[in-house]
């Protein structure tokens, strides 16, 4: 079999065209590198558009007491101190610059009365901190970066007569394998979705910015693209994954109608005054404030309500607790029989503010409910419940350079696909700023790495042939198993056995079932040829979803405590001993997932001093504090 394979040479290949990928590509192009952007969808359709609330950055526009140290503190608290402290530090320090930079690309954020970027309240953030555009901030971000890339292409056109001379977008293209030269990345191999033609992009430096893994779950806010491609590519190339047991279940996904189950209801609904009620009409969140947060949250409805207008003299409403707390609370209410008919709780703005205010402040939520559910949120409450939203875990990276850890060189990762920054739980608003801060860093350091090599790594023909064989294999198994059935079965395993609340027996069972699925996925088939064939595409994605799911299940079984996005019914409390441990996944020579414990890097003393001693005692062991 001799396949035609289109071949390209680049300095930096960025896999993923969401916020992190585009920001990395901009940086690589600015560093003078010939850059390719690989997008699984059309250019500008990335999952980043789903981010509604905003981008967290301590610019201090709404409250001048805000600064990077407060933001750092909030991020560490939100992540239950399991964050890579250095990433949290860099993120808090650099986020404002990254946001301001977007304005020079043409972004139009909402404004304060004095003309600065407006900032809004969000769960877990001490001050109003989220730069936003109504509730479509992610769209603004992606469009701005997309248009900046077009602007760079226009500069290149003026100079060279070719728009794509320095930066090219390969839209609707999927990468199936990274090829190595020894321990260095040498190329990315994949196919054009449109034609099914194969493509090889040779490059000394590759940036992974492929987003998350939510498609392995039944109820998810994530699109079909979120199949853990980058996680799996990294593993197979010799990199490691950390924190894979931590998945964020966003507390408020739509639960009715069934077709939209999982789609997000932005947290700004709560930030702007929306409250959660159970079927008894009780504002139940007051019953779920954990001790570690009791000081910052109101214990009466009166105080909570005063906070929206006078945040300096009142404590925050408990609806604004970090996402993991709210998700668990809703889960408990529904389990106790106080949920709605569709298995959610009520989220109400209709009795809280005038209709006009609702449509102005939450235009896309109004629109979403009106058009998808035929519900007028100015007149009646929404029905919401937890939905799989974000994976905190991901590629283990060097905090400063975004270079992947493990035994591979030339591989970088940024955005949701990377791990460490958010610890065990991500604060809302921290992902948009995360992907800007570390997207830039990944682009910068990938370029510097490419620069530092004297000769380009070489691809072996045998590797290319093997990759081509693997990519085309499902098409030759016409009687193989239906990929859609396999995906449903995988989603059932993960949703039912590795969901919000986890137990040892179920996790062991999940691992057994994942093993069975692995054998079936090896025999998946696709009918219908190579041209834009979604069945074939899914057949190839399944392999990635499966290996990443196995990492999650393994790590979830290993970590015997409850923290952030990992709740064990059999180990319901946080354990300071476990806080010192990162669970690291790698693939061994046989392609089996290998899990090991590694120490979490210890925070520098001057950063530790930003916290009160009393707070640290809730998270840390005595010996750490002595």
């Amino acid at each position, binding site marked *: 079999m001799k396949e035609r394979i289109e071949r390209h040479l680049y300095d930096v290949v960025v896999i993923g065209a969401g916020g992190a990928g585009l920001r990395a590509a901009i940086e690589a192009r600015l560093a003078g590198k010939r850059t390719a952007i690989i997008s699984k969808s*059309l250019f500008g359709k990335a999952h980043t558009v789903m981010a509604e609330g905003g981008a967290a950055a301590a610019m201090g526009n709404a409250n001048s007491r805000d600064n990077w140290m407060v933001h750092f503190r909030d991020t560490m608290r939100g992540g239950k101190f399991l964050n890579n402290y250095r990433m949290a530090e860099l993120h808090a320090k650099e986020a404002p610059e990254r946001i301001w930079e977007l304005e020079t690309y043409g972004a*139009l954020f909402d404004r304060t009365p004095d003309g600065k970027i407006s900032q809004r309240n969000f769960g877990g953030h001490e001050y109003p901190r989220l730069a936003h555009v109504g509730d479509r901030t992610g769209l603004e971000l992606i469009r701005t970066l997309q248009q900046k890339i077009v602007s760079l292409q226009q500069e290149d056109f003026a100079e060279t007569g070719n728009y794509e001379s320095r930066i090219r977008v390969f839209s609707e293209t999927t990468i199936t394998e990274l090829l190595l030269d020894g321990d260095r990345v040498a190329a990315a191999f994949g196919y054009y979705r449109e034609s099914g033609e194969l493509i090889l992009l040779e490059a000394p430096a590759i940036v992974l910015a492929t987003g998350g893994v939510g498609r392995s779950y039944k109820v998810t806010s994530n699109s*079909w693209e979120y199949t853990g491609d980058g996680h799996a590519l990294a593993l197979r190339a010799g990199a490691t994954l950390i924190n894979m047991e931590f998945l964020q279940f966003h507390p408020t996904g739509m639960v009715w109608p069934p077709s939209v189950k999982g789609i997000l209801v932005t947290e700004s609904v709560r930030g702007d005054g929306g409250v959660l009620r159970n079927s008894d009409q009780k504002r139940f969140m007051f019953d779920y404030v954990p001790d570690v947060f009791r000081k910052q949250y109101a214990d009466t409805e009166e105080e909570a309500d005063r906070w929206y207008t006078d945040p300096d003299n009142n404590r925050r409403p408990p609806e604004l607790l970090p996402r993991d707390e709210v998700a668990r609370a809703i889960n408990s209410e529904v389990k106790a029989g106080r949920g709605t008919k569709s298995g959610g709780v009520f989220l109400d703005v209709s009795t809280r503010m005038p209709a006009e205010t609702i449509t102005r402040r939450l235009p896309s939520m109004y629109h979403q409910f009106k058009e998808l559910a035929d519900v007028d949120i100015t007149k009646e409450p929404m029905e919401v419940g937890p939905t799989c939203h974000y994976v905190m875990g991901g590629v283990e990276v060097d905090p400063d350079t975004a270079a992947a850890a493990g035994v591979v060189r030339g591989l970088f990762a940024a955005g949701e696909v990377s791990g460490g920054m958010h610890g065990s739980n991500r604060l809302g608003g921290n992902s948009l700023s995360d992907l800007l801060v570390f997207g830039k860093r990944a682009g910068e350091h990938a370029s510097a790495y490419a620069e530092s090599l004297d000769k380009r790594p070489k691809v072996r023909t045998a590797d290319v042939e093997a990759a081509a064989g693997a990519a085309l294999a499902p098409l030759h198994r016409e009687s193989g198993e239906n990929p859609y059935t396999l995906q449903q079965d995988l989603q059932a395993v993960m949703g039912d056995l590795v969901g919000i609340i986890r137990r040892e027996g179920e996790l062991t069972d999940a691992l057994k079932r994942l093993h069975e699925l692995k054998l079936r996925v090896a025999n998946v088939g696709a009918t219908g040829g190579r041209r834009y064939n979604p069945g074939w595409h899914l057949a190839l994605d399944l392999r990635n979803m499966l290996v990443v799911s196995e990492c999650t299940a393994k790590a979830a079984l290993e970590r015997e405590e409850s923290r952030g996005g990992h709740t064990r019914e059999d180990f319901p409390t946080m354990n300071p001993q476990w806080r010192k441990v990162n669970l690291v996944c790698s693939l061994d020579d046989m392609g089996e997932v290998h899990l090991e414990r590694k120490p979490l890097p210890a925070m520098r003393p001057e950063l530790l001093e930003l916290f009160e001693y009393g707070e640290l005692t809730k998270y840390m062991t005595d010996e750490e504090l002595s």
Partner: protein
Amino acid sequence: MSRHFRVWRGDSSGGEIRDYDVDVNDGEVVLDIIHRIQATQAPDLACRWNCKAGKCGSCSMEINGKPRLGCMTRMSTFEESETVTITPLRAFPVIRDLVTDVSFNYTKARETPAFSPPEGLAPGEYRMQQIDVERSQEFRKCIECFLCQNTCHVVRDHEENKEAFSGPRSFIRAAELDMHPLDARSDRKEYAQANQGLGYCNITKCCSEVCPEHIKITDNAIIPLKERVVDRRYDPLVWLGRKIFRRDQLAEAPPAGVAPDAHLDVGEMLSTQSGGPSPFGDDQTFPLTDITYQHPAPGSPSREG
């Protein structure tokens, strides 16, 4: 409950409408039905989609002949006995089944000059008032579903116009930059007229009608672009104003322009040829008979064979 669907299957070499009977549950949208067809009957049925929440603009298609987003078209909007016919966007070449080649839109976007940052303002120093950014923000709501491009009859029925005509999506981009309080370029309108084929638009508002984000494309972008082009080119007062006033004060200057009784035709004034360009291309014979955009009656497939 099982219902009847007709879906166009094929590729650039041709195709046909195929029939599918599919179960429909309470609260579902058309995209759910397509997913069910994929999962149970035709795993290779090609269809773009991403967010399934009306935010990404991927699942554009024609449903009973109307340009719609599959994820935003609720099955409850059809009669229970109604056959739903799903076809690809008509103005773009078919790749396969419901997927079309929309590169036309990206080519036009790449030709539109990007935001030009103001000189002397460092990042973090940008100051704008909410009321001033709101006009551009309306256009930045665009999710690039290209339904407006697909429905615009300047290109829908006239492939040959694609060269000269960039379409409503590009016009709102031009308007957005024109209204951006800090954009350093001042020739956005002239550019739209000279390079984007603004004159071809004859304001039938089909684009506004299909916009899932309810952007008032015609009223808030195209008409202001056209009007201001007239102002700038022909009104000496405005010309003087531009010399005297700073650009940001211009908006507050008294509306100068064509005298109220002078009914000037926009296209005619701006064209190099007398009578102005035909909005439907210059190769038309008159009277025009086939250019009115009509929604096909429900159930009648707009594209067969």
